[in-house]
């Protein structure tokens, strides 16, 4: 224990009287204030307290607009007239409820339910009864306002998407803020019932878009009518977002799908900017902006074609023959094959106790790499796969970013799957069977990829191995047009693949579209060279004796998905594209024509009829 230290205690005694005076003055200050509030202003303030005269009115900010890369407005705000009731004011005038119900064509019960639903409401906080009323209703309400105490009609900004479901998955939708989000927004809290971004760009850029809410403090009379404002804060609109997509291109892409389902993603391979992003079926974001009805929500959620999913980043499908690009690269890079290595395709390849088949029944005969990619020969790639082995193929798949998320700034992206021997051991506890390598090398089996990932693959090939982060927003501007943020291209990775190998593969992909017998011939253009690869993703394994031409007789939900990945122009790629048509059958017939329309539009080419090939084979329609 320390010793007593009593030196210089007189310092304390010296300051004592000053402290007492200071404390006395402070308390005197409190006393004066109490006197002024309770005695001088007492009766005034009592009157205010008895009528509960001070009310709060919200004045939400305009949400920032969404524009396409050329400045076309995709999402903005329009004024909406909303009807509110203040339950506390209704107590003495219950007939108001009946009258308002009559004007708005709803029943008293419905209104009462809406009021009851707001349990945690602060006192005298208005409850929204109906939003977006029409002019007629507004006129009747406003002219009767004097007789309807407790009624409040207010103008609020409402989100409007003029193009409806166009690019709905990219844009996203709004929803009422939930309790979790209320808790998390600690710095700038949301008000109850605020609509905030729940999906897509609306969700990811919420903080830029939301703006700052304003409001008014007003004094009201005993009937709840406004007397005078006590304080006003003006709202400040959110920032505008310039998206990377092109409105016209997006329209073309959506129309090209007609009534088919699937996903399309197109981007500039040299910057990573997404030019179009389609997922079908789509949804109507406007119904979210006005608070979605429960039956509307139910029908969206229960739809078997998943309209709320952005299939471009959330759908995981076997890559099918588009994966032969990776198998070819793995073969060349590992030195297991050269461009001249030949294998014999006799239409079938017995391995183990199974007969692995080529899509072409008669077989391709002796075939080397270029033709094997052009004509998408399965048996060639089975043998390459056997030589290279599962893990080396997986390595090159990873080099191009398959099996992991691309990092696009949209919610719920899925990583897909690239199997390997260690992956299978971990996942299923059993070793890899060599037979599975055969399926893997032609993109079936465990392999899964999103359309965006395959787009990254083809962009990487187009771009000498370089892959850019896929981006959907180009820049953020405030309402005065001042740039707030900019998103320059970000190089994600450069696949460790030699230039020679890429050159060989690029040539073969050009051949797949432009050579005779090329499986992607339906995407061939007159003036510009396109390079691409078709693919078919199996939904179910069809019996060994199944004839490709019989696909039309298979029930739709068991039909294969059709793939097409491409880039153009071949010499200087400006656009890369991945197209998936769910249950579309074959890449050449279902997916490639869609890609063609989009490429034509983007490169400003005249739409052309399918290019007639001199010796087009009838079964090319069914090519894998």
């Amino acid at each position: 224990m320390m010793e007593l230290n009593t030196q210089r205690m007189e310092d304390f005694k010296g300051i004592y009287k000053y402290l007492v005076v200071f404390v006395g003055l402070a308390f005197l200050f409190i006393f004066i204030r109490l006197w002024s509030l309770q005695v001088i202003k007492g009766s005034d303030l009592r009157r205010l307290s008895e009528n509960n005269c001070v009310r709060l009115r919200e004045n939400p900010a305009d949400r920032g607009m969404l524009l396409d890369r050329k400045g076309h407005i995709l999402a903005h705000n329009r004024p909406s007239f909303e009807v509110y009731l203040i339950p506390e004011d209704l107590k003495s005038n219950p007939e108001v409820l009946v009258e308002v119900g009559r004007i708005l064509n709803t029943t008293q019960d419905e209104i009462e339910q809406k009021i009851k639903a707001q349990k945690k409401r602060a006192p005298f906080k208005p409850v929204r009864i109906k939003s977006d009323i029409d002019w007629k209703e507004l006129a009747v309400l406003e002219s009767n306002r004097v007789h309807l105490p407790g009624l409040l009609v207010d103008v609020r900004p409402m989100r409007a998407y003029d193009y409806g479901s166009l690019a709905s998955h990219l844009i996203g939708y709004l929803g009422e803020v939930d309790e979790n989000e209320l808790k998390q927004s600690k710095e700038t809290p949301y008000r109850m019932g605020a609509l905030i971004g729940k999906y897509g760009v609306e969700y990811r850029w919420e903080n830029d878009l939301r703006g700052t809410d304003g409001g008014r403090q007003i004094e009201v009379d005993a009937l709840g009518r406004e007397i005078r404002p006590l304080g006003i804060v003006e709202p400040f609109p959110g920032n505008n977002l310039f998206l990377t997509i092109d409105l016209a291109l997006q329209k073309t892409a959506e129309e090209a799908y007609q009534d088919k389902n699937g996903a399309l993603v197109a981007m500039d391979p040299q910057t990573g900017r997404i030019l179009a992003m389609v997922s079908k079926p789509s949804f109507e974001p406007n119904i979210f902006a006005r608070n979605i009805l429960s039956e509307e929500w139910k029908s969206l959620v229960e739809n078997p074609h998943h309209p709320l999913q952005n299939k471009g980043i959330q759908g995981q499908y076997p890559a099918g023959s588009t994966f032969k690009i990776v198998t070819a690269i793995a073969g060349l890079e590992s030195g297991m094959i050269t461009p001249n290595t030949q294998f014999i395709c006799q239409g079938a390849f017995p391995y183990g106790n199974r007969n692995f088949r080529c899509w072409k029944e008669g077989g391709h005969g002796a075939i080397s790499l270029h033709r094997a990619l052009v004509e998408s020969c399965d048996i060639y790639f089975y043998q390459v796969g056997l030589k290279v082995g599962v893990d080396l193929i997986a390595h090159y798949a990873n080099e191009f970013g398959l099996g992991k998320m691309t990092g696009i700034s949209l919610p719920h992206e899925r990583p897909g799957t690239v199997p390997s021997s260690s992956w299978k051991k971990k996942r299923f506890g059993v070793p890899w069977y060599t037979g599975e390598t055969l399926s893997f090398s032609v993109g079936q089996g465990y392999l899964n990829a999103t359309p965006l990932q395959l787009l990254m693959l083809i962009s990487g090939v187009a771009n000498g191995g370089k892959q850019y982060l896929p981006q959907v927003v180009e820049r953020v501007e405030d309402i005065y047009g001042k740039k707030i943020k900019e998103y320059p291209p970000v190089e994600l990775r450069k696949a460790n693949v030699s230039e020679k190998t890429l050159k060989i593969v690029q040539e073969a992909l050009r051949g797949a579209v432009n050579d005779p017998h090329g499986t992607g011939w339906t995407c061939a253009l007159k003036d510009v060279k396109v390079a691409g690869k078709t693919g078919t993703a199996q939904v179910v394994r069809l019996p060994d004796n199944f004839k490709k031409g019989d696909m039309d007789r298979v029930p739709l939900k068991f039909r294969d998905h059709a793939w097409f990945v491409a880039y153009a122009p071949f010499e200087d790629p400006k656009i890369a594209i991945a197209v998936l048509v769910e249950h579309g059958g074959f890449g050449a017939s279902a997916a490639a024509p869609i890609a063609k329309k989009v490429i034509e539009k983007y490169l400003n080419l005249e739409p052309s009829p399918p290019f007639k090939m001199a010796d087009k084979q009838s079964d090319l329609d069914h090519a894998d």
Partner: protein
Amino acid sequence: MQIDRRLLIHFDWTLLGMVLAIASLGILNLYSATAKMEMPGTPFYLKQIFWLLIGLLMMVTVAFIEYRFYSDFAYIAYAITLFLLIIVLGYGIITSGAQRWVKIGTFSFQPSEFVKISLILALAKFFHRPPHRKGYSLKQLLLPFLLLFLPMGLILKQPDLGTAIMLLFIFFSILIFVKVRWPSLLIIGLSGAGLVPLLWNFLKEYQKKRILTFFNPDMDPLGAGYHLIQSKIAVGSGGVMGKGFMKGTQCKLGFLPEQQTDFIFSALGEEWGLIGSLFIVGLYLALVLWGLRIAVQAKDRFGAIIAFGVVAMFFWHIFINIGMVLGIMPVVGIPLPLFSYGGSFMISTLVGVGLLLNVSMRRYLF
């Protein structure tokens, strides 16, 4: 440890009496203010009685252990509370947007409350060695400033501006009490003022806005400003005689946020009017003046500084809180001792009272 009979003779019954009177009225007021609140579980006032009993037990314990004994543990106690603050930032519970609570078993408590006590102890330990001639110099104050800034930074990060300001006020009160050289005090004041614009630029936009609102509630008539108007209406509508016990409306209707904590005084003003308010304010004034007397009459420097630190803590809490409710102070989250609801705050307050009692009854001993 045997209790010296002389301790009982010198026991400060006046102080204890004042504290018990304020605390009882506080619970009565809390009962009325929260009577209409729909809350699941135990009502606030019962929980508060429980905290009061726990606090009194700790107060007695703290009072009867000879205070010189605390000097050995001052820095250790300081280190422990600092550690708890770090834990809070890492694993704390987030309520209404701030991370202030630590959970041990089923109890959760706010370490920042106890930092106030441990900072007082640590500063008392440091300043118990007297200064030379004209008071402490700037160089000697390096360690005390470090003692302040470490917990203050951690608490600001929670964020809890109220408690951080409290630490700052306690710290400067003690500096003035122990006598710092006038030039040094001037330099500290000037450099503090000079640092403000510099620090201002480091703040994020929303932080700036928040601070501006603290000092000008009209900037935010929807949040803090609205509460302020409602609080003034509540107090003012009480008039001279008050609306009567359980008859207040402003607080019960939920116009005020934190009606059971930071704005509890508005319920008193509304129901008991000027008469009741003055009575409570008078009790607080007596408590503070009595505490000051304990500080200057203490036997040694360590005891005096502890007592003064505790009194400074009480004074700033009372003055800022009531000032805030009456609209003469910015709205910062600072509760009213013995009145506001809250377990950690009740206990830290009563531990402070225990320290005061301790110093008071040992003023003739040793």
